[in-house]
């Protein structure tokens, strides 16, 4: 497969195939890289990065909470882009990219919520507070969940890929507006508790920044690994389904 497309039209038409090709070549090693880098990050968090003055140990949750949230948005962006390309090019691969990104994105949204809640408990005293960040994450969890439920409950005769693509696009477009409105809402009725889930105090000291960036990279690799694995599984499942149809046709012909 020649890597240099001859025109813009060819670029867009072959983008799904070329992306899949790239994903396949990464598949053998990306899992190991992801797990390895997570191990390195764990080492950094547990043994290297200093304790933060105000919050102490719970602040270290920051190093998996923030990257999870970041990946959650990245996954949604992938869903958005893939959905648009599906509606444009109507190839199965774009739909596979979208639904797998939604699934893994939902996982990371759950992780962001769980780590956020477990961070909140020692800091706020409760597992939940209607903090702007956490509330927005919760709404995003519902949007992702709705997308996945839509795919699960679509009627067999409906073109679920098309429906899901549209929902994915609209959902993504709403996210910044939801953020803004929830933020305004919270500034009008500020929580009595100090919201210190983001940067502690002023800027981050170098060691914390390095750890955060390393974790961001590692968690992104985990996302990429899971997404690639799922996409490959879905593609294989579709190939097998095709094979089954051909086999049945042949067996019927043989009778």
């Amino acid at each position, binding site marked *: 497969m020649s890597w240099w497309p001859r025109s813009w039209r060819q670029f867009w038409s072959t983008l799904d195939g070329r992306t899949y090709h790239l994903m396949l070549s990464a598949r053998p090693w990306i899992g190991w890289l992801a797990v390895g880098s997570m191990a390195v990050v764990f080492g950094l968090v547990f043994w290297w990065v200093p304790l933060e003055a105000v919050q102490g140990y719970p602040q270290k949750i920051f190093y998996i909470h923030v990257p999870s949230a970041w990946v959650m948005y990245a996954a949604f962006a992938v869903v958005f882009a893939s959905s648009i390309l599906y509606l444009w090019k109507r190839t199965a691969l774009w739909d596979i990219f979208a639904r797998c990104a939604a699934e893994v994105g939902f996982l990371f949204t759950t992780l962001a919520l769980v780590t956020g809640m477990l961070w909140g408990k020692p800091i706020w005293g409760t597992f939940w507070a209607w903090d702007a960040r956490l509330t927005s994450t919760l709404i995003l969890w519902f949007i992702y969940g709705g997308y996945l439920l839509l795919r699960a409950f*679509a009627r067999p005769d409906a073109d679920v890929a098309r429906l899901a693509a549209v929902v994915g696009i609209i959902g993504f477009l709403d996210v910044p507006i939801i953020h803004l409105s929830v933020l305004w809402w919270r500034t009008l009725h500020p929580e009595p508790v100090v919201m210190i889930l983001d940067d502690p105090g002023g800027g981050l000291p170098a060691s914390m920044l390095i750890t955060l960036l390393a974790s961001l990279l590692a968690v992104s690799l985990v996302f990429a690994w899971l997404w690639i694995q799922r996409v490959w599984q879905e593609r294989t499942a579709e190939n097998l389904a095709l094979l089954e149809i051909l086999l049945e046709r042949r067996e019927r012909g043989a009778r």
Partner: protein
Amino acid sequence: MGWRAAGAILAKDLRLELRRVETVATMVVFAVLVAVIFVFAGDPTQADLRRLGPGALWVSLLFAGALGFGRWFAQEERNQALQGLLVSPVDRAALFAGKWAGATIFLLALECALVPAAVTMYQLDLRGSWPELALLLAVVTIGYSALGTFFAAVAARTTAGELLLPILLFPLSVPLLLAGAEGGQALIEGGRSGDYWNWLSLAVAFDVIFGTVCTLAFEYVIEE
């Protein structure tokens, strides 16, 4: 093909509903009932009523709307009227615009009954800010109807439509809900007109963005 078709569809929907006024009336009863249930559930004191009231109003409206959107599409699907519409050379965007306008009008009619009921039940004092409240209500209704009509079409193509419609609709409608509730609150408390205008602007922006997107995206939902 655009606006005349939209107008025709709107006229048809209105005629259908007006022939059976009970359906709008039933939705009004449902919405008021939800507002009543809030009182039993929350058991508010006199002071609480005023605080609870606007929230109860918005929740009733949202739920009644979600039920209504589902019904309006179920109607079409049942007698295959939609197929008939699709065979005719109607622009999909116009089809959406017609249904959207119809849903908006019905919700506005619902509000004409619901708001006075809620004001009475919750002893709300709107301090002569009626016009601004009405404007906010109208803008929020327009946006909610756009999303509701759109997702009703989407949910109609699932086996769990009545459940899926609210699941898809509510999270995405949060900005509208906040705009309505907070903007209304700013008016009722008085002296916070800056906040009111901010929320109103947000709702208007929401309507413009999602009105456009839903209208354009509707053909992808409906194409068979």
